[in-house]
């Protein structure tokens, strides 16, 4: 039997290889073995939090920032985690050697062009995490890769040294001006698209940012692949909590699960104005 849904997903125990603070985030490396082979940029991992007697019964989803297969520990997976609520704080407190229960890889991945193209990667906050792994792949396909990162404050810009090497240019915006330019990533987006002949935008960040990008490029030829973030109870397609209104070819709307039909979606298909507002209607 061939599964089409969750087809590479595996549940396993993984060991925390390292955990260090980087600005407002924790960069967490976990030893995951063989599964790195099936992880693609844009996929996510679902992690149990809180330990055996936890009152948190649901997994938390994290973008897989990058994977590497050549270390002496077998495959490792990198996560960039913002200590936000009790689940992410628990994860950020896990020391080297801790065992965590993961399900990965999950969800759709960024579409990789077969031809060399001009790509613009736009990240908001920890949304930059999966973009560096993506940049590597795009570069290896001969693409030109520009990157725009934005956050409210400088400490929320995640842009590691190694990461910077795989992009042709990197521009940073912060809302308070504490790093890079003051403002939002959408500020000079259209200009950049035109000046650099961008073919595809790959984005990951707050829903507001993804929507704004979609609207900006609506009348252009630019393709917008965005990684959405909806509250997920299961991460594997069985609960229907994570749905987004997506326009079908015939103009009707489907409520698609962002865990299996996403997180990477075509921005122009998402009906941003209906997010959180789709009426309880019979289509």
């Amino acid at each position, binding site marked *: 039997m061939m599964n089409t849904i969750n087809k590479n997903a595996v549940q396993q125990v993984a060991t925390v290889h390292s955990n260090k603070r980087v600005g407002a985030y924790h960069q967490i490396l976990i030893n995951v073995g063989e599964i790195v082979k099936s992880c693609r940029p844009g996929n996510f991992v679902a992690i149990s939090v809180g330990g055996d007697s936890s009152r948190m*019964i649901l997994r938390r989803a994290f973008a897989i920032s990058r994977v590497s297969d050549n270390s002496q520990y077998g495959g490792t997976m990198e996560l960039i985690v913002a200590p936000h609520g009790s689940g992410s704080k628990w994860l950020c407190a896990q020391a080297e050697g801790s065992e965590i229960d993961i399900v990965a890889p999950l969800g759709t991945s960024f579409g990789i062009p077969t031809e060399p193209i001009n790509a613009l990667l736009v990240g908001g906050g920890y949304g930059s995490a999966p973009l560096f792994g993506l940049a590597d792949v795009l570069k290896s396909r001969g693409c030109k890769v520009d990157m725009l990162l934005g956050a409210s404050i400088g400490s929320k810009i995640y842009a590691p040294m190694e990461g910077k090497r795989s992009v042709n240019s990197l521009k940073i915006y912060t809302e308070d001006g504490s790093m890079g330019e003051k403002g939002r990533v959408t500020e000079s987006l259209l200009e950049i698209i035109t000046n650099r002949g961008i073919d595809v935008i790959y984005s990951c960040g707050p829903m507001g940012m993804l929507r704004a990008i979609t609207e900006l490029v609506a009348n252009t030829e630019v393709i917008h692949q965005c990684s959405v973030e909806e509250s997920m109870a*299961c991460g594997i397609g069985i*609960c*229907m*909590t*994570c749905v987004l209104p997506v326009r079908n070819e015939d103009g009707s709307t489907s409520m698609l699960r962002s865990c299996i039909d996403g997180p990477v979606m075509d921005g122009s298909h998402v009906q941003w104005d209906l997010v959180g507002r789709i009426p*309880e209607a019979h289509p």
Partner: protein
Amino acid sequence: MTLPVDMSTTLANAWFPTPIFTASGCASSGKELSQFFSLKDVGAIVTKSVMTKPRHGRPTPRMAETPSGMLNSIGLQGPGIDAFLANDLPWLLEQKARVVVSIAGETIEEYSTLARKIRSASGISALEVNISCPNVENRGLVFACDPDASRRVIDGVRKTIGGELPIIAKLSPDVTNLPEIAKGVVDAGADALALINTVLGMVINLETMKPHLGGKTGGLSGPAIKPIAVRAIYQVHAALPQVPILGMGGVSSGRDALELILAGASAISVGTASFGNPTALITIQNELRELLVARGFATVQQAIGYAHREETQ
């Protein structure tokens, strides 16, 4: 080594090799979980409640985690009965899974319509009738909270579907007198009862300072409600010892499953636990088997309702 316990169970005339089922709405229509285990290895797949028409459900956010539980307000998003029978059911049967189809309606008539469509399908083990839905013909009052409406739904389904397929009426715990509702639907033709559906709850978002869920209220599920499920099953089994119960509510370990079985459940649906652990059903099934052995039970049957026995000494 498979331990020597007969794990098989029945709900009315339907036989299942093990008592561990998925819960409606917590396994979609099976495909998503089949990556993690073989669907035929569990007792049955109870499919997401399906209505006559395709349906968008409620606005997001649709979930909120709560202490040892979660709220959901999915609002019965689904493809509608025709697409379900054309696509999902045949696929499940191909996997050799036992299938319990769950239906939901907004009017008494809609339930009968659904039953009529189900009647023409083959290979189904049982029909679960989810009556924890708002009745649009009576100010949105949930069928399962209204003794009369629940009886009429089941009566309509029974008459439509004929005598063969077991009907499992799924009840809400949000009522003053659960045994009364249970008796009503059994009189109306239900062969078995599914207990419990989610408990009505709400979470206020402290940032927006409004109800967090798009649907305002939602259904509470998970370990938090297990004591309510055990009580409901115990009460109803005491009142109606002959009526088999598909028990559910917060089961996430073999110990939980055994608790519900001792209280009176003949089989167990596992819902929310699968969200945290995609292989929960298999783990629970294995743990249950070992617990039964450790307590000297040779069959699941012996354990059903065992907590009700009178001590002879």
